[in-house]
């Protein structure tokens, strides 16, 4: 590649990077402004002065318990992820490695639901959650979404790619199917399990539509659903709202940086090959 082309490429790459990152930078910087500073026209990029006002407000406002929402979100996303990993890996093992009546039909049915837009099930799911007495509880943001056809499908494909000789050896050594699953297959599947874990956590952490409608009490909200309340309470007090947005972003951005390879490979793989 010529020097000119290389320079042009980097110019485009950097310009685009600014387009993608500038709004996020603006969010962080605004969260560090005073109320007046954020409304200044024309507004500056750097806070003048730097201020903890936004964070102070969200952490002390009893009407909008942002910390509590943070804890709720953390709990919900963690439990949801564990539930997906356990149920999907067990089901995927059965579908990939065991023989039983109804295996084909069961798998076809599960895959079939991949093609139903989840939003079209929201009303019946709401009524089902209601009849179980789950509305306005942590359970309702942990469990229903964990019926992940994607998770089962994704892990099944991965299990099929693992050579069966290792399991045969374990069986010949006297291991039963539970031991084969727990001691042979799962340890070999760490990359796939990690990918599914990260994707499940991100999805649950960021979920908005469902928690907005199934959670009511201010104390029970998750962070995304609570942010709406925050915006209502601090209509134009942008440092406060942006502080809430930053708080909702930090865990997933950290997770993304740590697990970047998993997330990106998971997306490209689940999209195309799964």
């Amino acid at each position: 590649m010529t020097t000119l082309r290389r320079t042009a490429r980097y110019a485009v790459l950097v310009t685009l990077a600014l387009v993608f990152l500038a709004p996020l930078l603006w969010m962080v910087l605004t969260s560090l402004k005073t109320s007046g500073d954020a409304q200044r026209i024309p507004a500056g990029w750097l806070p003048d002065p730097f201020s903890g006002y936004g964070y102070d407000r969200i952490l002390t406002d009893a009407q909008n318990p942002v910390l509590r929402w943070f804890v709720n979100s953390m709990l919900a996303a963690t439990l949801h992820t564990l539930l997906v990993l356990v149920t999907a890996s067990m089901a995927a093992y059965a579908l990939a490695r065991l023989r039983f009546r109804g295996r084909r039909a069961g798998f076809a049915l599960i895959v079939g639901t991949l093609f139903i837009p989840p939003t079209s099930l929201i009303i019946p799911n709401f009524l089902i959650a209601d009849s179980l007495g789950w509305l306005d509880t942590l359970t309702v943001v942990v469990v229903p979404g964990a019926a992940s056809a994607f998770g089962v499908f994704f892990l099944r494909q991965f299990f099929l790619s693992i050579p069966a000789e290792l399991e045969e050896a374990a069986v010949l050594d006297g291991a039963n199917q539970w031991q084969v699953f727990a001691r042979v297959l799962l340890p070999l599947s760490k990359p796939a399990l990690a990918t599914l874990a990260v994707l499940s956590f991100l999805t649950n952490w960021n979920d908005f539509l469902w928690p907005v409608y199934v959670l009511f009490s201010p104390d029970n909200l998750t962070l995304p659903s609570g942010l709406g309340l925050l915006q209502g309470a601090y209509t134009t007090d942008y440092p406060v709202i942006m502080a809430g947005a930053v708080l909702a972003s930090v865990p997933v951005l950290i997770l993304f940086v740590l697990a970047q390879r998993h997330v990106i490979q998971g997306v490209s793989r689940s999209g195309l090959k799964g």
Partner: protein
Amino acid sequence: MADTSTVGAARADAPPPAATRKPRSVLRRGRAVTPYLFLAPYLVLFLVFGLAPVLFGAWLSLHQWDIQLPNRPFVGLDNYRDLFSSDSAIYGDWWSSVRATGIFTVFSVPLLVVVPLGLALLLNEKFPGRTFFRAVYFAPYVLGVAVIGLLWRFLLDANLGLVNRLLGAVGLPADTPWVTDVPWAWVSLVGVTVWWTSGFNAVIYLAGLQDIPPELYEAARMDGAGAWDRFRNVTLPGLRPVMLFVLTTTILASANVFGQSFLITQGAPGQETRTVVWRIVDEGLRDNDAGRAAAMSILFALALAVISIVNFRFFRYRED
């Protein structure tokens, strides 16, 4: 992490590879009930929150189902008829939401098919910093719609927002009502969505680009094909299955748009940017008419299914 290609070895529609056939005879020795025990936890979730809602939704749509009232009489197809007869109370709101979703989808999908392809082509060659830029372009997608919605509501604010200020700084009109008037609200919703999700589609294209055999490019080059010819005759045909996937999933995602209009334009100026999904949850959960909302959901799901099938047919036909 295992090689991508091995994961792809078995597809849903293909018979399992030979490697998986052998262990069955060995593993079959387990007790007959064991497979069902492995399936049971997931199956409970699946039956209650995957399959039951489908059947329950169909049942709901045939009833006048006021969440707050005890009597839920069977009304046959009345809920569906209401959505199509212009003298029903819901007709206007419903079709306005269909129109909103249609406008959003028609304008966002082409951009979300083309812009990410450009990004992927830019990132496809090996150069220092490639992984970094890939992560940067993907980063907004990691944030939830609640965060990007609040953020852009602020950035697009006509008076305080950064967007108008930047436009003013380069001598353009600085008072555009980005979130409160059409067509600007549409530009905002589509623009924000392209910014938010392009990285996602770009990653899928990148995976597809890496699957195109380099020999094809070599051969094209030997035949004297220029960059454009190579793109047209090697890259595009090689990407066809990937494009089909991107196109279909993007149409589905765009048709399901909710958070952006809920948070950024808040339906404004009137009801113009209130989308189908928003209409469905409002009808079912705010106006308490679960029967009518279920009928809307089913029409919506069927429409999306038809669009997906047409996509597949069209692309398969082109391939022949």
